[in-house]
């Protein structure tokens, strides 16, 4: 689907297309969010999606369902209970010990069977390794459309899902519809949507669904699972404070200044893409469209120009501080605080100043 050569054909065209929604798809109702659970842990992107799902369901005047697939036992029960606290009206549960570890075969069967039986109009999944593996397989099995890595989900005037994602290179956005097929499927990357507020609620309506598979039916076997040693790297997306450096730092040695400031702040560090391409910083530290999306309370960007591909990864930050020698750098168009200065000189001073402030803060506290 290369982009249309001309500006989009018009709502009239879309409305016309919409009328063609085949009769058997009209029964498809309600919004579903796939709750991604692995080894007893729900990926936060699922709750973020519940926030979006709730809004869509309210606009459509339909119900929001959480879909929990996993082993029998406490972890799955806890995920179900939690989904009500994040806004579910009901939960579909496929609980079977065959589902202890994620495998494409078993999870694809569970989710496609559920969809074919209970017919949702919208199905949202996280764009994680698990979510992408599953979403691609499920959409193809169902022969429906799947929009990847959406940054915005809306309901259009004709009640169809308008899923917006960055187009090539991220400099433009495009809105994609799945007009004549159901469900309308979309994935969203972690941290792109805000985490909704958790409200204590009792467990509501739960609909159990059988898997209809036994271990012997599943070809792929898990021989081992090796957990990552370096847990810190995966925290970048969820860090409260992030310090990042770009090409303006000029050398890998200067990038140490970013690490040092992050160290003093108890923050995570990140970088723009060129530093990964040059091999100065590992790929899991890249922030932006093809890296991590972050939503920290404070984001400090040093020597980063603020290209759109970088911007889409940091726009959700509460306070953006940019340090750049060029007063016309695009980053100042979306940063909140600007320091037009040499980052290589400022960073050590900032690290020192923060160190002092934060320890003075300790003294004050102890004194009071």
């Amino acid at each position, binding site marked *: 689907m290369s982009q249309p050569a001309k500006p989009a054909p018009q709502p009239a065209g879309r409305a016309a297309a919409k009328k063609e929604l085949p009769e058997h798809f009209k029964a498809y109702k309600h919004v579903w969010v796939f709750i991604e659970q692995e080894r007893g842990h729900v990926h936060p992107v699922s709750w973020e999606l519940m926030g979006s799902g709730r809004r869509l369901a309210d606009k459509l005047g339909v119900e929001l369902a959480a879909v929990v697939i996993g082993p029998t036992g406490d972890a799955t029960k806890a995920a179900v209970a939690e989904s009500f606290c994040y806004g579910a009206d009901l939960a579909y549960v496929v609980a079977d010990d065959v589902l202890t570890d994620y495998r494409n075969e078993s999870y694809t069967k569970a989710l496609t069977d559920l969809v074919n039986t209970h017919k949702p109009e919208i199905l949202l999944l996280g764009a994680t390794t698990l979510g*992408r593996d599953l979403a691609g397989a499920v959409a193809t099995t169902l022969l429906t459309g799947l929009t990847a890595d959406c940054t915005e989900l809306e309901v259009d005037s004709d009640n169809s899902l308008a899923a917006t994602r960055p187009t090539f290179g991220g400099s433009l956005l495009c*809105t994609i519809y799945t007009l004549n097929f159901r469900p309308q499927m979309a994935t969203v990357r972690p941290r792109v949507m805000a985490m909704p507020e958790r409200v204590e609620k009792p467990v509501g309506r739960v609909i159990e669904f059988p898997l209809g598979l036994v271990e012997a039916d599943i070809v792929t076997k898990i021989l081992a699972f090796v957990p990552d040693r370096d847990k810190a790297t995966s925290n970048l997306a969820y860090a409260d404070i992030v310090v990042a450096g770009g090409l303006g730092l000029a050398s890998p040695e200067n990038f140490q200044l970013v690490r040092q400031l992050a160290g003093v702040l108890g923050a995570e560090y990140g970088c723009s893409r060129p530093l990964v391409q040059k091999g100065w910083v590992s790929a899991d530290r890249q922030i932006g469209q093809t890296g991590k999306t972050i939503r920290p309370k404070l984001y400090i960007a040093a020597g980063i120009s603020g290209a759109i591909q970088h911007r889409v990864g940091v726009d959700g930050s509460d306070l953006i501080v940019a340090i750049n020698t060029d007063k016309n750098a695009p980053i100042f168009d979306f940063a909140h605080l600007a320091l037009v200065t040499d980052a290589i000189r400022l960073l050590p001073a900032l690290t020192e100043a923060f160190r002092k402030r934060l320890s003075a803060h300790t003294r004050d506290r102890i004194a009071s």
Partner: protein
Amino acid sequence: MHIVVCIKQVPDSAQIRVHPVTNTIMRQGVPTIINPYDLFALEEALRLRDEFGGEVTVLTMGPPTAEDSLRKALTIGANRAVLLTDRFFAGSDTLATSYALAAAIRKIGSTFGAVDVVFTGKQTIDGDTAQVGPGICKRLDFLQLTYVSKVSSLDLEARTIEVERRSEGGVQVLRSNLPCLITMLEGTNQVRRGSMINALNAARAEVVKWSAQDAGVEDIQKCGLRGSPTVVKRVFAPTPRAEKAKVVEAAGQPPAEALIDEIFKLRPKLENEMFELARGF
């Protein structure tokens, strides 16, 4: 053993520029390359072929000019190249793309020998959906192994394969069966340079060119724009933030101090939170 590697020809993003005024992508004169992620898939396939014997066929769906990328893959070491090209494929989304590619892979199997493994890249750098691999896989009813960092063993007699697969928070070691589809993770192997001999052979080699009909595509309605359930309706520029950044003026103060003051002035709660965080380290 017969391995098919799917590669996509994409514009070289390093050379893409966005027009500063119109905010559109300036594609003119931008050279095309093999999607960088696909090179890791190709390398892994060649490594398996070198170890276990057999052939590697590279496949792409694209315009006639995509032949360049196929020749490049032949230079790197693939045995055969198939170009799937037809105006019916224009405007394909991932569902339509996987439909056409799966048909071509079936045809490759019946023409050149049954396919044991299909490789794809993790994702492309243009469409960037990571959906085509799983799509092809389901259409062929193969076993799906995504985000693979290593093929650790293969048993052609028993028809089994063992791989390491990246998952959230760790690595799954999986055993599965052939035929399977593997999407290969980047940075997992050292992509070889093409040899002189390969380059000479590649220049002379004939790239197999198939239309939809040649590839045995059964239903043309499932191809291209018509076969794509997703529809791009609107392309637009992101809205700029209303106000520009506030410039921190260091009035007689060291700039670092002035900046910290401004930060805490704008977000008073942050001071305590930062203290808590810093203490944790």
